[in-house]
């Protein structure tokens, strides 16, 4: 990469950072500093604004860089990912969005704690929410690192490390100063930029093939060296039964995990009513669906125009396929068009990472302050304002994410996101659905559902080939591998549901009929909603 690329990309990116920091200061100018304001932005966003913000929260660097890379390298098997990411929104729309908006205030634990003994339930749900958020954050950090490696040419470790640290520091500033209001506006700006960039690139790819999708696909298949097999499933997940089960596991995690992601749930609290929450999901489905359809074109376009070898040569996991594609579409390395497009894509990808990272940091600091700190702090200790605790928590979460991001920098980001989804689906979704729909659910059931999903998911990952026992592992030197699959979802999601059921039927607690009535009436009508 030449000097010009770097300068222009850095300029554009600095402009984005300047604008977003401006938004942050402007928004926090006359802030009241209440929890309502910090966690939920005053609950006054319109459905369209929230729809864009949800899309901005959800369309992560993992989809923009990771999934397009997977399609470029493995063809149809990358597309399987995309389908899961989109279909997941039906779970959110049908079962979660409106009811959670009506029933909770800031976090997932609010919904569960309304029916149960508060303390154990809050600690459990808070712990799992923080775990999910940290995993997701690491994925974004890794994406930022690999992007800068490409941008700055040499893959110097110091440059990558400093990028990860810089992204972490920025996100802490956004979140702790601006809260939900600033985070939302950053996500809206980012969603518009990302969609604009994707539309432009897709149009250029289609123009290259004169609008002939058929030829695009045939060229991609031909250049991939796999022929027609490139356009059918099986290249990545079809070798043996382990790989097949691995994908089924991932597919389940993707479709069930979205509804358990804390940073997605917290977005529903930023609109005034359940109806607005529903309409924001409809907006989000439209935007996200359109975006993923375009990433499919970009992925196959990268395979057809660059060829998988070029993509692989730049980054073995394929994370840099889109920036390379932009360079080529603009006229190739050295041309003005190429330089500009490359710089735009790199800056958009950075913006994406920053916005997603800010959303997750905010959600996890809410879990720490609103659920964990409130339940665990010493009684009689000096009470601090919850918002202050949340700000401090944002710094702590940022530090943890930076450290793990540096450690995990060579993993494919799409895979890391799959892991976060698996934990969300195993630990958060069962307890949420049981609380909303099961009359007989009890406190013990709730606690068991969370830990019964969280513990297997985490333990299975530790025992999986991701962590040890294969050359691509995080710790290739040691061998703890007992579980063959990379993604624990297939086992841990059913375990989460099973544990919740088991905890409920074995507990002596009589389910509180009145509180169930309250939850049900509130969730469906919105009576007394915050």
């Amino acid at each position, binding site marked *: 990469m030449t000097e010009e690329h770097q300068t222009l990309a850095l300029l554009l990116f600095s402009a984005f950072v300047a604008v977003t920091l401006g938004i942050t200061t402007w928004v926090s100018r006359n802030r009241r500093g209440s929890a309502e304001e910090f966690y939920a932005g005053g609950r006054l966003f319109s459905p369209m604004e929230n729809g864009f913000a949800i899309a901005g929260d959800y369309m992560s660097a993992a989809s923009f860089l990771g999934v397009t890379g997977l399609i470029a390298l493995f063809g149809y098997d990358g597309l399987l990912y995309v389908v899961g990411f989109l279909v997941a929104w039906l779970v959110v729309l049908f*079962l979660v969005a409106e009811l959670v908006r009506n029933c909770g205030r800031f976090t997932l634990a609010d919904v569960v704690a309304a029916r149960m003994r508060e303390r154990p339930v809050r600690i459990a749900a808070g712990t799992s929410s923080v775990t999910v958020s940290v995993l997701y954050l690491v994925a974004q950090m890794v994406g930022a690192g690999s992007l800068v490696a490409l941008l700055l040419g040499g893959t110097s470790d110091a440059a990558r490390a400093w990028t990860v640290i810089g992204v972490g520091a920025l996100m802490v500033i956004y979140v702790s100063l601006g809260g939900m209001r600033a985070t939302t506006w950053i996500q809206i700006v980012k969603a518009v930029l990302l969609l604009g960039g994707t539309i432009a690139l897709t149009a250029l790819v289609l123009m290259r093939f004169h609008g002939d999708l058929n030829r695009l696909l045939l060229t991609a298949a031909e250049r991939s060296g796999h022929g027609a097999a490139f*356009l059918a499933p099986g290249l990545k997940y079809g070798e043996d039964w382990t790989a097949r089960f691995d994908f*089924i596991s991932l597919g389940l995690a993707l479709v069930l995990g979205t509804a358990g992601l804390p940073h997605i749930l917290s977005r529903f609290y930023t609109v005034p009513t359940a109806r607005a929450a529903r309409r924001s999901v409809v907006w989000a489905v439209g935007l996200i669906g359109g975006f993923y359809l375009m990433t499919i074109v970009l992925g196959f376009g990268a395979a057809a125009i660059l060829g998988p070898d070029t993509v692989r040569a730049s980054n073995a996991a394929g994370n840099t396929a889109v920036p390379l594609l932009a360079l080529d579409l603009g006229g190739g390395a050295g041309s003005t068009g190429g330089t500009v497009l490359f710089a735009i894509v790199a800056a958009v990808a950075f913006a994406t990472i920053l916005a997603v990272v800010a959303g997750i940091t905010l959600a996890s600091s809410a879990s720490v302050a609103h659920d964990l*700190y409130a339940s665990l702090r010493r009684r009689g200790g000096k*009470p601090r304002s919850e918002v202050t605790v949340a700000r401090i928590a944002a710094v702590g979460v940022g530090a943890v994410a930076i450290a793990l991001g540096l450690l995990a920098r060579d993993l494919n980001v799409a895979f890391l996101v799959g892991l976060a989804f698996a934990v969300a689906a195993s630990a958060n979704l069962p307890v949420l659905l049981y609380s909303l729909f099961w009359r007989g659910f009890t406190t013990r059931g709730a606690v068991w559902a969370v830990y019964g999903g969280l513990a297997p998911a985490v333990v299975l990952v530790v025992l999986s080939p991701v962590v040890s026992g294969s050359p691509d592992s995080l710790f290739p030197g040691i061998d703890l591998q007992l579980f063959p699959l990379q993604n624990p979802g297939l086992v841990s999601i059913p375990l989460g549901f099973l544990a919740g059921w088991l905890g409920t039927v074995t507990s002596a607690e009589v389910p509180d009929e009145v509180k169930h009535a309250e939850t049900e009436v509130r969730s469906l009508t919105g009576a007394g909603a915050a």
Partner: protein
Amino acid sequence: MQPSKGRPCGGGAGQESRVEPLDGHEPVPAEEAGQLRYDDPWYDALASGWGESSDEAQAQPVVPSARTEGDAEAAAADVYLEVQRSAAFQEVRQRYRKFVVPASVAFFTWYVGYVVTATTAPELMARPVAGAVNVAMVAGLGQFLSTFLLTWAYARHARLRRDRAALELRWDTQELTRGVSGGAS
């Protein structure tokens, strides 16, 4: 923490709900209070005289003073049971479930079927349909299409069949809770 029946759903933010002894009772440690609830769900409903915390007022500005006595709280809780048993609420719930249950089963089966077929029967998925397009492509785009269609259908169903009734129930319920909590002055 605070075992009051009338607090907003999920309203017990540790911070705000941390026991303000509004009428002279000593704050009860959370665990003890929880234990009482565990043994006998009715006990604390009657005993919890220290009323609703500040977040009741914060969450529901329409409710004036939320300083209720135990009896009033139990009555407020009864409102929810009463509403839950009412024909109007049952109708809303049934309409919601009648759409959501079959639709969820349908899309989930369709998705799992798609993923399992794609991984276990790639040769079926590779069968060409037209040009470069094969069964796998058609199925993948079909998933996109079905998601868009179901989103549209759900939003339409909720708007036409549920929203109005739910809104009426919401006001009725809030009127009733306000009435019994003695704050309707």
